[in-house]
């Protein structure tokens, strides 16, 4: 096993951790944090793909690296949007939770058009 594979396995484990946090933690903020962990694990998978394809005097294939840079920025934008939603929800209700009082489906009659 070489270093690249080691980091790849680390990425796989992080994906597992992040996924677990995203699914089981009820707090939206912690879900967002878990999503970031999950994302960084996925990025490490790109890292191992890039590193093991080193050639032409480069330390790694630059194509996956460029993709990760794009994806990191997208993940940040997603985090910003999710956090803005959580904070707005807090403002509206004084709480931040995904569990509606009347459990999702059967919402109130109060307006939408």
């Amino acid at each position, binding site marked *: 096993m070489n270093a690249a594979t080691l980091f790849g396995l680390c990425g796989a484990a992080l994906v597992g951790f992040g996924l677990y946090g995203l699914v089981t933690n009820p707090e939206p903020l912690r879900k967002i944090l878990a999503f*970031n962990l999950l994302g960084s694990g996925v990025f490490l998978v790109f890292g191992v793909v890039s590193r093991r394809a080193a050639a032409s005097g480069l330390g790694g294939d630059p194509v996956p690296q460029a993709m990760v840079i794009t994806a990191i*920025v997208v993940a*940040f934008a997603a985090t910003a949007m999710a956090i803005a939603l959580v904070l707005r929800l807090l403002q509206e209700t004084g709480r931040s939770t995904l569990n509606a009082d009347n459990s999702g489906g059967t919402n109130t009659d109060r307006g939408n058009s």
Partner: protein
Amino acid sequence: MTILSAFDIGLVVLILGIGASTIAAREAFTAVIGFVVYGLLLSIAWVRLSAVDVALTEAAIGGGMTGMLILGAVARLRLAKGTDTRASLPVRFAAGGLCALVAAGLAIAILSPPEAIPTLAPMVMENLAQSGLGNPVAGVLFVYRALDTLLEKVVLILALLGVWSLAPDSVWGGIPGLRVYAQPSSTLTFLAQLLPPVGIVVAIYMCWVGAKEPGGAFQGGTVLAAMWLLVMIAGLKNVPSISQPWLRLLLVVGPVIFLAIGLAGMVLANAFLDYPSGYAKPLIIAVEVALTLSIGVALGLLAAGPPERVQQQ
């Protein structure tokens, strides 16, 4: 390929330990502090993977900006009434099993690479000279896969619009609810006076060397955003209202110039997002400079959140 070193093993153990703690920690605050450290460790991992461009981006955005954003949210959420209950034990077991399955699947995929590992690195290098760029990652971002990069800028603007759209109607066009800690002669003010000139030089440098060495518009833009936020938080500069025309202009100037140069390529070169031969490098640098500005403003505003008040306090 390097042989496993004690350093790498230690690094991975640390990353996994701190990563797991951000999930397991009871207090959100502990988790976020763990996450910031985690981001820094991760950028070291990226250096070990010979991806310095990614390491810079990860440190600046993945750790720094994201950490700051979540930390700010944690501070506000302390007011929240905690009503959530943790998932029940069987549910957690089932979820754990599922997640382990996914991780194991990924591990198997990573442990069984193709016999001859395919790579685009030689092809990237072969054609890089044409563009005059020295940094292969910049080559991929601005030459070969410029379409993705361009559209991703639109994603950034859209995310900002999404954040803004969460404002109540009454404060539309107002000022983002960034917390300002204006205290004369505090350490923060001192830092906010000292760092930005340095930061701006660093940002310009990053943007400039990005053409031939690691760095570029993303990393430069993040540094700009961080400096701008620092100055605003210290109360040295007012947070601008989102209806300011100059602000909107700064936000789109990068993608607009990119798009315009791309379209000009249909006439002056062979295709959309193709650069006329001989002019590739100056054009790409122009695009990068404009993008650095736009990215800096966009990231800063994403961190600042939706408008919350109409009048400056």
